[in-house]
């Protein structure tokens, strides 16, 4: 891109807030009441992630992975790509990310770190809970109808945040490195898009990214301390 420094985020925004809001509401109405099922799946996945039996984390990863595949197909490709060509590229990225989570669930016997009373674990768990249960409240809390609520496993933004929380709990550092870029880049893009649209969800998106970065930093610091001793 030439003269890239002259571009602002608004130059890349190719749809109006009205169109975006209606897109979300239409998708939610078409899927209702599967949003409740998606919330249940996230809750069950969290329970499995923190179960005493380490192998249960595999089901959590597989559940999240399938959720991302669904979001890629139903929303990113099926609706959003119609008004935003970025979504046409994001859809295969979400698909690959989802399949990556499923592959990790299949290939690793103990893919997630056990939940401990340590900052890294707590921050990652808080991020998943935040994405699953606080993020959907942003719409009604800012005066929008419930049908504008965005639920993880249905919409890409909370799905990406929840995935970041789960990825922060993955044991293999190589897997963490491989699975972080897609949800992190999408979260950054979504935060920028929402900010440009003037949508209230820009702030919880930014907060979610901050939580992930804090969880990642806490994990790295924890590792150094362990090596130090």
């Amino acid at each position: 891109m030439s003269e890239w420094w002259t571009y602002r985020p608004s130059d890349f925004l190719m749809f109006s807030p009205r169109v975006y809001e209606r897109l979300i509401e239409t998708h939610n109405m078409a899927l209702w009441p599967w949003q409740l099922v998606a919330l249940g799946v996230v809750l069950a996945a969290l329970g499995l992630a923190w179960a005493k039996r380490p192998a249960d984390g595999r089901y959590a990863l597989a559940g999240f992975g399938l959720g991302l595949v669904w979001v890629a197909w139903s929303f990113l490709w099926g609706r959003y790509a119609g008004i935003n060509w970025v979504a046409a590229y994001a859809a295969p990225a979400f698909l690959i990310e989802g399949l990556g989570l499923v592959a990790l669930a299949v290939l690793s016997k103990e893919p997630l770190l056990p939940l401990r009373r340590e900052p890294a674990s707590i921050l990652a768990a808080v991020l998943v809970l935040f994405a699953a249960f606080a993020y959907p409240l942003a719409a009604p809390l800012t005066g929008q109808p419930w049908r504008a609520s965005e639920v993880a496993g249905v919409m890409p933004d909370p799905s990406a945040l929840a995935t970041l929380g789960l990825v922060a709990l993955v044991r293999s550092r190589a897997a963490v490195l491989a699975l972080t870029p897609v949800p992190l880049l999408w979260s950054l893009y979504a935060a920028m898009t929402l900010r440009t649209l003037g949508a209230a969800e820009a702030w919880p998106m930014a907060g979610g990214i901050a939580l992930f970065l804090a969880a990642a930093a806490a994990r790295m610091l924890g590792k150094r301390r362990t090596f130090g001793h």
Partner: protein
Amino acid sequence: MSLRPDRRMVLGGAAASAALVASPRGLAQGPDPMAKTIPSSGEKIPAVGLGTWITFNVGEDAGLREDCVGVMRAFFEAGGRMIDSSPMYGSAQAVVGHGLKALGPGAPVFSAEKVWTSSDGPAQIEETRRRWGVRRFDLLQVHNLLSWEKHLETLQAMKQSGRARYIGITTSEGRRHRDIEKIVVERPLDFLQLTYNPVDREAEQRLLPLAKERGVAVIVNRPFRQGDLTQALEGEDLPGFAAEIGAKSWAQLILKFIVSHPAVTCAIPATTSVDHVRENLAAVSGAMPDEAMREKIAERLADA
């Protein structure tokens, strides 16, 4: 906003020589918009067109698509002709095609499109043509100079074989004006599209005089800075001199400023509002500002 009934009509500059278009209008409302001449052919075209960036990117939303049909209907009824879109605008091309189909074969559209890809230009143009549902395009432009050398050759060949009537290049927000200047001098172009309004006046320095000299028609995008300009002025009273040229709103004052430049052929504001599209077309009928008034408009808007 105020409108003084005893307005004094002032015809100035290019406006004085501009003819009025006799367009096929079903339910004509108000006087015909001023028409300006495309230098390479002598064809006249209404000085206000319809942009589609953001406003026509409504996807498959049936309700919003019908709103766009309403905007297009009002546009043609008010004497408008040029509709400009691009492959970069998401679903806008398909929505324009939907509108043309809904309005029937009599719509007097002047179709302006772009090629925007670093790979297969002809394939993209054909896909664009299919979305519009037209036999050929009136104008094909290279969007933001992306792979411009290759695409200009394609467009030139299409013009020669009758698959496009005019060809051109586009830029926006003052980008790559040096490159544009070089292309305008070296290549045979019918149209140049750029950003120009009372606040963004860089084009006045070199590109607009050059286009005039080379006989290249000029399309003006972002006349209201994508709505930022009119939004910033919302609630502010129009200056007294606006009534002298019949401007009833800031949008009309800005459009009168733009199209009264001798080198400008057509401004393409984008809107989702039927009222606004009528207001935009109405802006270019009747009196136009002379050079002194154009400066007054620019001065007044400098701080907007």
